[in-house]
């Protein structure tokens, strides 16, 4: 990339000057980045402010009367009296419980969904069996049904199974497959040269072994991207867990956060506590993304993963 720019500038030096159009383009870009990132800073700034002092200085750029009280309230570390004195509701969050629930649900969904979808994708891409194309067509038709349509009937089903208010109940519907995951993995397996498999077959490996030892490791890049996106999606899901979970035992972070927000104290919102909770809930995904950002961004950029 740099090499290309260098040659262009050498040949046509006048291009280095900033044209008005370019200045405008960069300004637009900078504005977009500012709007994108400003809320993140504002979360941090508010979370570190003292809630009672916020009202007097709504426009201050830096945290007002800095304190960690917001985080303490979000994590349930303050006593009820303390919390109420600082403008909180005293309701608090059983933060670690909800965090654990979110981790369990997202991990269960991601690991199972990707494994099962990849297995099915392999069967669709590489195994020969009667009715294969028809079954695949049926799976593809599943893409046409909006997820939201299946939520109500799925709730009825989960209730009949006696799994309401359980982590398994939250995970089950998306644990086995999504049509998209199957479709995406199949595309990948189709592109793997047959020779790779044939070589392993010659070595006497069975197809099960080939799948786990050859195909799956080779698919590490798409699996990783799909995995991270699935994790983010299930971590952020709100509607379905809201339907299924009633108590702390199965409450995930998104639902807990919405409840925390609804516990409005008489004096007004506990904004610093709320922003601290928000930050804590979002942080794991920011960290996860931070680790894999480059690979994910380029996979989305070049394959247009949904």
């Amino acid at each position, binding site marked *: 990339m740099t090499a290309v720019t260098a040659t262009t500038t050498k040949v046509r030096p006048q291009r280095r000057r900033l044209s008005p*159009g*370019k200045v405008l383009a960069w300004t637009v870009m900078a504005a*977009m980045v500012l709007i994108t990132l400003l*809320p993140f800073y504002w979360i941090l700034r508010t979370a570190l402010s003292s809630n009672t002092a*916020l009202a007097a200085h*709504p426009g201050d750029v830096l945290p007002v009367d800095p304190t960690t009280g917001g985080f303490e309230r979000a994590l349930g570390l303050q006593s009820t009296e303390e919390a109420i004195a600082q403008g909180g509701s005293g309701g608090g969050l059983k933060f670690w419980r909800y965090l654990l629930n979110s981790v369990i649900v997202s991990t269960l969904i991601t690991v*199972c969904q990707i494994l*099962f979808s990849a*297995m*099915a994708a392999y*069967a669709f891409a590489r*195994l*020969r*069996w009667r009715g294969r194309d028809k079954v695949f067509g049926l*799976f593809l038709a599943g893409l046409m049904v909006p997820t*939201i*349509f*299946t939520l*109500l*009937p*799925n709730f*009825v*089903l989960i209730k009949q199974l006696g799994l309401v208010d359980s982590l398994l109940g939250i995970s089950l519907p998306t*644990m*086995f*497959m999504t*049509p998209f995951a*199957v*479709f995406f993995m199949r595309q*990948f397996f189709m*592109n793997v*040269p047959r020779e*790779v498999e*044939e070589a392993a077959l*010659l070595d006497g490996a069975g197809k*099960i072994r080939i799948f786990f030892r050859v195909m799956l490791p*080779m*698919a590490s890049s798409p699996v990783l991207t799909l995995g991270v996106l699935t994790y983010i999606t299930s*971590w952020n*899901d709100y*509607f379905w867990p809201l*339907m299924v979970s009633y108590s702390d035992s199965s409450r995930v972070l*998104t639902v807990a*956060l*919405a409840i925390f927000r609804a516990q409005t104290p008489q004096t007004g*919102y506990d904004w610093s506590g709320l*922003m601290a909770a*928000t930050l804590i*809930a*979002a942080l794991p*995904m*920011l960290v996860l*993304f931070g680790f894999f*950002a480059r690979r*994910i*961004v380029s996979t989305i950029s*070049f*394959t*247009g993963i*949904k």
Partner: protein
Amino acid sequence: MTVASSSPPSRLSPRGVEGTAPQPRSGRKRERDGGGRGDGALAALFIAPAMLGFLVFLFWPTLRGIYLSFTRFNLLTPAEWVGLDNYRRMVKDPIFWDSLKVTVEYVFINIGIQTVSALAIAVLLQRLTQSAVLRGVVLTPYLMSNVVAGIVWLWMLDTQLGIGNEIIAGLGFDRIPFLADETWAIPTIALINVWRHVGYTALLLFAGLQAIPNDMYEAAKVDGASEWRMFWRITMPLLRPVLAVVLIMTVIGSFQVFDTVAVTTNGGPANATNVLQFYIYGSAFGRFQFGYASAMSVALLVVLSAITILQYRLTRAGQTDLG
């Protein structure tokens, strides 16, 4: 539904294959194509978990959702067949029509602004800078849940204490009760969701832009074409199939708005943000009318299918001018 075509295998070592590939051909071929029974048993094993999930949590619920729309059902007693009653009620229910109207208004604002902004970002990311860091930055809001995004903007747009209104007041204008006013609430929610989704949409479009050969821009530049002209003459025509698919995807997603409404306005003020999905949820879980809620879900399903087909026709998706 998607433009996915997986990246080529990354850690491929064809070296070991070259020497051995030719001689086993005949033997392998017989196993591969012979008999027609192929790998039946093995395939059944591999597909079983996904098949189970598909049948139990996707196929069956779809049929059941349609069935429930013809019943009266409150979860406690068995569903009772009532024919078209729910649909008759729906047609005469002013709140249903109102929520449909609110939803359509939301979708128009959300998709309109989001598509234009995403296109602008994608083009800037392609023509101005190829920075991977910036691509990562525009994606960050997508990492937040709708709940988080909703709460943050609820705070930033608060009438008295929000930074948004501080700036507006600082400039000498009247404070705007963004989420507390009947006219402002829907556009505000639409914009909050633009904030969260625009980067992701931009990256999908960027993927489409990557497929346009750079030579075309180089050639156009030699002919003295401006960036503006190149956008309309090269980018837009060649991006059209991708744009169509992305539009269909985002419109379908947009119609399902729920989380942001639930967190910020709870359907209010005065039903001004009572979007369809919110009304459906309230009917089912607030009033335990699962039959009626299912009927409205079916209506939404029909609307979405119709829009998908219409959009597909209108934008001639799948065709490109590149051929």
